């Protein structure tokens, strides 16, 4: 019967790895952008304090809010990571389904 488990597993792994290598740069870029935006925001807070637009209490509060804002930006990257994992898993399942269909036809 035409069902080589090793070959099917290799195919599944290849499909999943192909998707992940395609999707990963977008997840990495998302994290990098989040950090760059955070750096700019912290610089803006420092600048506002230096020019006297805000006081020390404001700085403390602004920095606390930045923690939440960075968390939100990183949550986007988490969604992108989950989407990549979902695509990879489903590509592997598709390979398995096709291999089974082919094996059934051969019977």
């Amino acid at each position, binding site marked *: 019967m035409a069902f080589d488990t090793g070959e099917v597993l290799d195919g599944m792994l290849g499909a999943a790895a192909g998707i992940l290598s395609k999707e990963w740069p977008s997840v990495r870029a998302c994290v990098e952008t989040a950090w760059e935006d955070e750096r700019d925001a912290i610089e803006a807070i420092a600048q506002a304090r230096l020019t006297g637009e805000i006081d020390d209490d404001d700085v403390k509060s602004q920095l606390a809010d930045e923690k939440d804002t960075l968390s*939100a930006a990183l*949550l986007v990257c988490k969604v992108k990571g989950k989407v990549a994992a979902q695509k990879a898993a489903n590509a592997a399942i598709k390979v398995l389904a096709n291999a089974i269909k082919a094996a059934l036809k051969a019977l």
Partner: protein
Amino acid sequence: MRSSPYISRRLRHFAVLFVVAFAVNGCAIKLVPDYDGVTFEEIIKVGKKVDRFYGDVLETKSTDRPYQKFSERYVEIETDIRSLVTRNSARALNEESMQISEIILKLWVKYKDNHKLKDTYSDGNAKLDRNRFIRLFSSAASAEVAKKLDPDDKNAEKDSK
């Protein structure tokens, strides 16, 4: 009459493959919800309202920004953000978007309470808070857009359109 062991083994193999094929065909892994265009439009709409609010605050003379002047709009926008939180929390597998909308709500209420307490809103804080909300709504929109999958990556039978 008893079938030969060869035929019986083949039949058993066929049955196993048939069951596995049946199971695999209907099985797609789902880690995120489907993209929701209505939620995306809502994010853009509320984000625009918040930005307009800050535009108006900053256009008003800094010595003439009592809380009462803006209280109605604070309440209106808070209602819109709460609706966004409810919409996100009602969707399965949507933990991240729900958390982002909760962060937006938390900061909106915090700034509203600060404005009420101080009865003014300084230029410095208003500018920083405005930019923060731009980033937060951008995060909310990006999280929704990330859920848009190619037709090949969707389970056409199970996913909602």
